[in-house]
């Protein structure tokens, strides 16, 4: 082993560990590009949790029953918690939360585009849980085995809570579909709006995803975007049928040969427009975060000033 390490470059040793499925930990040597890719991905994920609080937060004050209100509030609170673990995981790579937030606010860092769509009816709370969290789980479960230790460990906890969120979203939809005609219409209308945007959550087609090959090689990613999108369609079409809802894609059809559903083409123009900041809610979501941060500055300053005064008094007393 010693002789082997002498002939291998640090990069080769690193890749050998990855290939052997040995986790990379914060103090281990890692290529700069690996570090940068992870900071980008983990912070993007943390920002998605933070911005993702807004579309659901939009319905907390209007939830139709005390039980639903309680579940929704708990769910949004979980998302804030996920944001915290993920920011902490990213900090182990040498960045800071302040830096990550500055990048979010300047538009340099991205968050999941799905949150740039508006939540217009109560059924959207069902669709966000059922479809959006369902898509997030497919993206995230493989991350529990991702090569970077702190990220993988954070994802284990995140995934447990996400699977609870997805079940409650499905249950909201089921209650609507078993309810009055007006409730079922509400459910179908929401599905019509959320179906295509959730398919976009898996990212561009593999052919247009330049980072995929390297991320797969580093075992940051374990499935390609198109593989995950197919899994999602295969999982969700039968669930929609079970609910008595129709997926808004005429091309959805079971393909016996592939043992998978065929489905239509995502509107990639819309995808890129929203990624570039032109979705209906891009402006207000980002502005809401910037406002919260700027309007909270005096609170953070007060807390720091008080802590400093207290420390100074304790130093004098000691």
């Amino acid at each position: 082993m010693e002789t082997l390490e002498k002939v291998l470059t640090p990069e080769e040793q690193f890749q050998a560990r990855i290939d052997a499925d040995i986790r990379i930990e914060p103090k281990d040597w890692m290529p700069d590009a690996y570090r940068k890719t992870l900071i980008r991905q983990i912070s993007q994920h943390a920002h998605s949790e933070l911005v993702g609080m807004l579309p659901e937060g939009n319905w907390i004050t209007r939830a139709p029953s005390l039980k639903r209100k309680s579940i929704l509030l708990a769910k949004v609170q979980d998302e804030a918690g996920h944001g915290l673990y993920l920011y902490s995981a990213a900090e182990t790579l040498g960045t800071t939360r302040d830096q990550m937030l500055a990048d979010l606010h300047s538009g340099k860092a991205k968050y999941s585009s799905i949150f740039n769509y508006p939540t217009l009816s109560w059924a959207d709370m069902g669709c966000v849980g059922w479809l959006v969290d369902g898509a997030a789980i497919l993206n995230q479960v493989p991350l529990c085995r991702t090569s970077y230790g702190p990220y993988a460990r954070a994802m284990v906890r995140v995934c447990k809570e996400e699977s609870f969120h997805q079940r409650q979203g499905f249950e909201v939809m089921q209650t609507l579909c078993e309810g009055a005609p007006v409730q079922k219409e509400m459910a179908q209308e929401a599905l019509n709006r959320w179906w295509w945007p959730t398919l976009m959550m898996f990212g561009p087609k593999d052919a247009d995803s330049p980072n995929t090959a390297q991320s797969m090689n580093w075992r940051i990613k374990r499935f390609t975007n198109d593989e995950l999108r197919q899994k999602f369609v295969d999982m969700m079409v039968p669930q929609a049928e079970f609910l008595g809802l129709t997926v808004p894609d005429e091309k959805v059809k079971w393909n016996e040969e592939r043992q998978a559903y065929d489905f239509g083409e995502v509107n990639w123009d819309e995808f890129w427009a929203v990624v570039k900041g032109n979705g209906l809610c891009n402006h207000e979501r980002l502005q809401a975060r910037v406002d919260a941060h700027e309007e909270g500055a005096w609170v953070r300053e007060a807390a720091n000033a008080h802590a400093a005064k207290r420390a100074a008094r304790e130093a004098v007393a000691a």
Partner: protein
Amino acid sequence: MSATLPETPATSVPAAAPNQLFPFVLQLADTSLILAHRLSEWCGHGPVLEQDLAMANIALDMLGEARSYYQYAAELEGQGRTEDDLAYLRSAVEYRNPLLVEQPNGDFAHTILRQFLFDNFHYHLLRKLKDGPNAQLAAIAEKSVKEAAYHLKWSSEWVIRLGDGTDESRKRLDKAIATLWRFGSELTTPTATETALQEIGVLPDYAALLTEMQAHTEHVFAEATVPLPAPVFAQLGGKTGRHTEHLGYLLSELQYMQRTYPGLTW
């Protein structure tokens, strides 16, 4: 219940008649729900992620407490109404929360001061209710007092940080005091219903609570280097259904779904 069997009193003190207890339990329920609603408005907009989480957490505690009270109130009333009927299908003048909790969030200093005034009362009330003669209220208080102790610690620490922080935080806290102090006394000013319950020992004497509350306020304000505010004219009325204009807007949002789609299951 069979008419031939004598009723066994559950406790040594006279049991409160449901018609006295029902409006009081409803008052507790409305109070917790309205404050939970206000806190939940912060969700996603807090000054820092940790405090966003703290406010959502307190809102969740208070919502849970409100549900326990509504369920008990529905049982006391015995008319087949549910927790949701009580929360979603009563108008502003039927709501029994004190004025303090319906006041808008304002800036973080307003939210903190409103919370501090409420927590200081709530915690000390629950400490008494948990040892009180009404088993149902005692059980709810037993669970909620642990949460309320944390809420009071949180809001007290923030009053101290804001008071003894920067010039700006102090200015903002002073403004919050000027706006909200007048709503504090309603919490400990008993209504006729509360007085009746105090007379039969179901509710503690608020004068005794006030001594404990005052001591805590003095301690926190001293730490915060903020002089104790001079007594002001107390605004009363929420507990008897006379509210500020803010409550109507809050309820129109809270009750939107149930009012738009009556009688459905969600």
